[in-house]
């Protein structure tokens, strides 16, 4: 059975490079216009959508950007990022309940815990690449899930952590609408941090490692240490998202650690566009909105629809929504110049 069928390129690999820093290379006014549009959309969001959905979108945007930092800019597909999202959700929840700190402090504690957890997991995972890396991260995430499930005295097992407070210097944030604006600065900081990382000297090295690890090593770059650093940074940003998710829902359930959560994060990034950073934000908005709309209309097989869209995008728009839009814009731009 030595079939020599011409298999299509590994579906988990990003499509041919969409130009790594294309947005950064776009004319200045385009960049500022996009930034302004993004900020306006962020400020408007809870007015156009159910505020609870808007809160979820922000959390997932951070999560997706964290995953894209690895998948798109380091060439590592983590299939276990729920470990960091979920660990931070639990730590944030516990700190908020027991220490009574303002919620940003609790979220910071959660994100730091996620980053600490990312050190040993990353240390062992970055020695592998491709599908093996994905499997190692999945295995560790499953371990974290089972620990959380068994450690009932702390995590309350299947009942979940209830009554995570939204305290912030006595402000009343019980309304999701106001909570959205309270959390928005943290999300923007997280996104800005991701943008800065990608456009830093460190980010440049990461892209080099992604494209040609052997060459990067020959230049004297310790590839494993760079990957580990990227992994921990990604864990931290995923943790910011997870912590805010816990406060946003005022509740933490085991779902935050489930492998489907990791999978959803990858789907969001692929939909939005691998290696585009902002694609993840867009993907988060679409997937969260769509899921909410489907569940609201009592549609049972949500996975069928999101899965179907995922397949379509992978087949037709391999660069994802953002990546395809970018490619179109660039083609238009260059044809106009001629």
């Amino acid at each position: 059975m030595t079939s020599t069928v011409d298999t299509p390129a590994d579906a988990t690999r990003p499509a041919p490079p969409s130009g790594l820093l294309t947005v950064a290379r776009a004319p200045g006014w385009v960049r500022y216009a996009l930034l302004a549009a993004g900020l306006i959309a962020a400020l408007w969001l809870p007015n156009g959508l159910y505020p609870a959905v808007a809160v979820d979108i922000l959390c997932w945007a951070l999560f997706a950007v964290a995953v894209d930092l690895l998948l798109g800019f380091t060439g590592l597909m983590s299939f276990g990022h729920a470990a960091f999202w979920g660990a931070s959700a639990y730590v944030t929840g516990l700190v908020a309940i027991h220490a009574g700190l303002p919620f940003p402090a609790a979220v910071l504690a959660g994100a730091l815990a996620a980053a600490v957890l990312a050190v040993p997991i990353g240390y062992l995972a970055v020695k592998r690449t491709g599908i093996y890396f994905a499997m190692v991260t999945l295995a560790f995430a499953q371990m974290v899930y089972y620990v959380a499930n068994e450690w009932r005295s702390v995590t309350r097992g299947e009942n979940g952590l209830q009554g995570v407070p939204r305290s912030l210097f006595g402000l009343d944030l019980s309304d999701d609408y106001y909570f959205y604006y309270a959390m928005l600065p943290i999300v923007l900081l997280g996104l800005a941090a991701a943008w800065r990382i990608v456009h830093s000297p460190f980010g440049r090295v990461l892209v080099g490692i992604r494209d040609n690890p052997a060459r990067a090593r020959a230049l004297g770059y310790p590839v494993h240490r760079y990957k580990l650093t990227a992994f921990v940074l990604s864990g931290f940003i995923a943790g910011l998202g997870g912590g805010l998710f816990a406060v946003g829902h005022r509740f933490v359930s085991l779902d935050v650690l489930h492998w489907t959560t990791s999978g959803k994060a990858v789907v969001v990034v692929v939909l939005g566009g691998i290696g585009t950073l902002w694609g993840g934000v867009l993907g988060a908005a679409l997937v969260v909105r769509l899921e909410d709309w489907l569940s609201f209309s009592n549609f049972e097989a949500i996975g069928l629809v999101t899965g179907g869209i995922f397949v379509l995008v992978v087949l037709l728009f391999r660069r994802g929504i953002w990546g395809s839009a970018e490619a179109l814009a660039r083609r238009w731009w260059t044809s106009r110049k001629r």
Partner: protein
Amino acid sequence: MAGQALLSARGLTRDFRGFRAVDGVDLDVAPESVHALVGPNGAGKTTLFNLLTGFLRPTGGRIELAGRDVTGLPPERVARLGVARSFQITSLFPQLTAQEHVELALQSPSGLGWRFWRSAKLMRRYHDRAAELLDMVGLADLAHAPSEALAYGRKRALELAIALALDPKVLLLDEPTAGMGLEDVDRTVELIARVRQGRTVVMVEHNMSVVGRLADTVTVLQAGKVLVEGPYDEVRADERVITAYLGAADAAR
């Protein structure tokens, strides 16, 4: 001899699943010399290169750089110790421009690569030096083209510029003129002659005229072993070398 060699190997051996690609090689590269490794295909030249640069761990033997044991060090450590290499199969970052390649190489020893909280614009501090290096290899006007858009000969030149950016003590060049047209070959030979000043160069090369013009010492490998070593003219006239080459040529046809 071993005392004064900058880069030396003793009994260097590498096995691949029962196949011995490099078999007890002793090598002494004198400081500031150009040392060519020649031999028929499959003689173990590239494997030897990979051993010397840490890309492969030796099965046996020892490697010393300026008297320091570097056996089994990972490639990034070897690079940091001043051994830069080019690859036989052009090995670049397809999306980066020529300029960015050289900047990335220049940045490597500085630790700037760890600054994830700073702007990549900081890398512009290497701009002038990078431009100088690109000019040196004749890529000045292609500095801002993505490397994947460069023609083959230009890519080889870029490889050289990147290796030089590391300001290495030892420069290992794996077939620097492979696949080049005559004009590019001449330019590359000239370039190597220029950059060898104050450096030690080890090169794998098939083109005997290139070897003749550049090499102080030639080591002929065959089936993973050193067949002959000596100055170019001596090696060229050696019966065993002629047999090995003709034999290989016959076998290939």
